[in-house]
Structure formats: structure tokens, C-alpha cells
């Protein structure tokens, strides 16, 4: 039984879809959905993204808080873990690169199970890692493939990528490997949040909303590619007209194109407000981007201010006579 949060998200996505259907099909607001919303969404995305990062940059990071899971560098005869407890900038870069490119921390995802009779089991679960890796890499490749609509002439890198992505199929229409992978990975990542009670418990509406939105983009894109074709020449001509700030309405397209476009606009406009900001956020995580020098270097609390101290010597000087009188031992006579 799905919880309320996932239902809210499904309702939200269906509602947005209805807005589009009414707007495009019913009222014929092509200018709004084909020109204005895309421009506004892109501006929202770029300005919001930069604003959010600058806002993060304006908060101090006073404490030295790298998360480590290896031996810190200490005495020469104790072997230090250079990457899991990075002492140098090189170590930090290596660790962050593995985090960002291969999601290494997700491999530490443990599944905890209570098995009869009274046995607590910790098992490494690689499904999340696999799903996340498959999703993000497919997403990147699909994004780069789409650059053929934005760039003229189309760079040969994009053509190689297309060729490589379509390598498993010689038939028409080409179903790209990444299209299939992203569909499977995204479905798994969504269902995971619905099925497992522990994950359901910590999931917010936005955790369901974003995967559903991306799922809408993926499904409309695949359908547009395989079944309900659009005229790609005119789509590219429309993109180029938008890029040159002489916008025209997209021609030779169908409703699926508008769904695809509207959902992409929603996603990028929502991006700066959402957890999707983990994209720049990973670079700005103090727990990951600091060197572990918490003992080899002296860190002074930036909020330290001169404290008036009263040492024992001063105390003794102050009460010397009184102490002598009652016969207390003194350090200095």
C-alpha cells in the first residue's frame, strides 16, 4: 500500500499533465507552452542555480568535519588510508571523483534484516548503487545526445555517442540502450521508495515527484521516437530560433512533444528549489571536500576571543598573606 506522499506526487503530475492538455489541446496556448514557458524555465534554472550556490558560499564552514572511513595519517609506521582519510588535496580529489563518477558511497548501503531465530543480519545491498549509477549515466548520455538539436554543426562526438548508444540494434527505429536503461533504473528507484517501508517512511512528496516527472519525460520521449513521430527538422529549426532570440512556434509536432517540453521545463525550473541541487552540492560538501588534517594541523576556533584568565600564580600572589597565615603550602615563598 503506497503512502500519502507518493499519492500526492502522482496527483500532482497528473494535474500538471491536465494543465498542459487543456492549455494546448483545449485552449491552443501554443505561444505560452512553446515559447514563454521554456524561456522562463531556463532563466529560472540558471539564476536559481547560481543564486543557491552563492548562498551556500556565503555560509562559513568553521569546523573541520571531513567524514572518514580509514586510518588517519599519524606515525610513519602506521599505514594511512590516503583516500578514505585524505590527507592531501590529491586524496580529496580522488575521493570526490569516485563519489561523483561512480557513486562509491552508495556501495556502503547496508540492508539490515531480522532473521529467525533472533539473528540480526547486515548485508551489503548493491541495488541502490546499480540503479543510481544506471540512471545518472543514462541521463548524462541522453542529455548529450540531445545536443544535436542545439548545436549546428553537430559535433562528431555526439554522432559517436549516438552510434555507441544504438549499437545493439541494426533495425529501425533505433531503440537506444540508454532509453531502456533509464526506464528500468527509474522505475526501480521509484518502486523502491513505495515498496520498502523504511524508505517509504523517510520519503517526502518531492522524492516521488521528481522521479515521476523524469519518468514522464522519458516515456513521452521514447513514444515520440518510436511511435508518434515528430518532424525533427522543424524541431531543430524551432530550437535554433529560440537560441537566436527570434522565437517561432514549433511546427510538425504533436501533443507528446508539448508534454515532453513542458515536463522538461518544469524539471529545470524546479531544479534550484529541489534536492536536485545535489549536483552542485556534492562539490560543496564540507564532509567530503576537506582534507583530514584535524590532528596534524592546529585549528583555531574562529569565534575564539581573548578570555580573561586568572592563573594559579596570580591567585597565589593575590592571597599570599592570607594563605601563609593559615599555613597553606605555597609554591613560591
Amino acid at each position, binding site marked *: 500500500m503506497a503512502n500519502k506522499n507518493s499519492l500526492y506526487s502522482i496527483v500532482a503530475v497528473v494535474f500538471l499533465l491536465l494543465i498542459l492538455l487543456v492549455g494546448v489541446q483545449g485552449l491552443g496556448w501554443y505561444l505560452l507552452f512553446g515559447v514563454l514557458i521554456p524561456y522562463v524555465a531556463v532563466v529560472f534554472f540558471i539564476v536559481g542555480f547560481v543564486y543557491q550556490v552563492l548562498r551556500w558560499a556565503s555560509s562559513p*564552514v568553521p569546523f573541520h568535519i571531513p567524514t572518514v572511513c580509514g586510518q588517519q595519517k599519524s606515525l610513519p609506521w602506521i599505514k594511512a588510508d590516503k583516500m578514505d582519510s585524505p590527507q592531501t588535496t590529491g586524496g580529496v580529489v580522488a575521493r570526490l571523483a569516485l563519489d561523483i563518477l561512480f557513486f562509491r558511497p552508495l556501495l556502503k548501503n547496508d540492508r539490515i534484516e531480522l532473521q529467525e531465530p533472533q539473528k540480526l543480519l547486515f548485508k551489503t545491498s548493491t541495488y541502490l548503487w546499480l540503479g543510481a549509477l544506471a540512471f545518472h549515466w543514462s541521463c548524462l548520455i541522453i542529455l548529450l545526445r540531445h545536443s544535436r538539436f542545439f548545436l549546428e554543426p553537430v559535433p562528431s562526438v555526439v554522432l559517436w555517442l549516438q552510434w555507441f548508444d544504438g549499437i545493439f540494434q541494426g533495425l529501425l527505429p533505433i531503440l537506444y540502450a540508454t532509453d531502456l536503461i533509464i526506464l528500468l533504473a527509474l522505475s526501480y528507484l521509484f518502486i523502491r521508495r513505495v515498496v520498502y517501508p523504511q524508505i517509504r517512511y523517510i520519503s517526502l512528496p518531492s522524492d516521488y515527484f521528481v522521479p515521476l516527472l523524469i519518468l514522464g519525460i522519458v516515456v513521452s520521449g521514447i513514444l515520440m521516437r518510436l511511435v508518434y513521430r515528430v518532424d525533427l527538422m522543424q524541431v531543430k529549426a524551432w530550437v535554433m530560433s529560440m537560441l537566436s532570440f527570434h522565437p517561432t512556434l514549433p511546427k510538425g509536432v504533436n501533443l507528446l512533444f508539448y508534454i515532453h517540453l513542458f515536463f522538461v521545463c518544469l524539471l529545470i525550473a524546479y531544479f534550484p528549489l529541489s534536492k536536485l541541487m545535489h549536483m552542485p552540492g556534492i562539490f560543496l560538501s564540507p564532509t567530503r571536500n576537506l582534507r583530514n588534517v584535524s590532528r596534524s594541523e592546529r585549528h583555531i576556533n574562529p569565534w575564539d576571543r581573548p578570555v580573561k584568565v586568572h592563573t594559579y600564580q596570580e591567585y597565589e600572589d593575590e592571597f599570599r598573606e592570607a594563605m601563609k597565615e593559615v599555613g597553606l603550602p605555597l609554591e613560591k615563598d
Partner: protein
Amino acid sequence: MYDGKKIIPGLLIFLGLVTYPFWHNGVSGKTGYVPKPKLPVDKKECVEPKDYIRVNHKDLLDDWKSSAIRKGRRTYVASNQKRYTMSLTRTCMQCHTDRAEFCDQCHKYAGVENKCWDCHMFPKEIKKE
């Protein structure tokens, strides 16, 4: 602002990436470029209506290929009941005689690499060689 020396270059890289289409098209000067496939002068209609052909010619050719090679059926009945021979070389290329001026115009624009030319050749190209 803290760590501006690292964060500002990072943001500049981000801005460079999201605005890359502007730089790319600006340098190539092809923002306003629209492909102009050269249409045959003497013929007025294609096998199917223009809008259908523009979007679905790849499926049509794929169907023709399977039908002609695997089933031996070589006659195509168009939606207007006209009959055509299912052949890229003997039907399509009779009107569209130049690959570079017709096919490649749009294919290059949309970054499409098709497999037609693995087997087929334009008569003109053979003469050149």
C-alpha cells in the same frame, strides 16, 4: 563569501556549459542555418504526401527493404492507389539524384547517420570514381 577562489571558477564552468550552444553556434555562424534539400524540378509529388514522407520515410524504406528482399514483393500501393516499384535506386533516386544535395542536407542537420549507403550508391558517385 568563502572559498570564492574555488566556487567562482566552478560557477563559471557551469555557466559556460549551459550556454555552450550560444558559443558553438556563434563561432560556426550557423544559428540561422536551415537545410535546403534540392527538390526535383520536374516532379510534383512523392510516393506519399509530403508531411508523411518527411517524418516516416525511414520506416517506409525499411518496410520496402523487408518486403522486397525477404518476401519478394516489389510493388508498393500508395495511399492514392498509385503503384510504385519498391526500390531505393530505381524509384527514389530517379528523382532525388544527388545524395549531398538532397539526403545529406537534413541528415547532417539532425545528426542522423543512416545505413543506406553501406550498400547503395548514387549513379553520380560511381561516375566520379
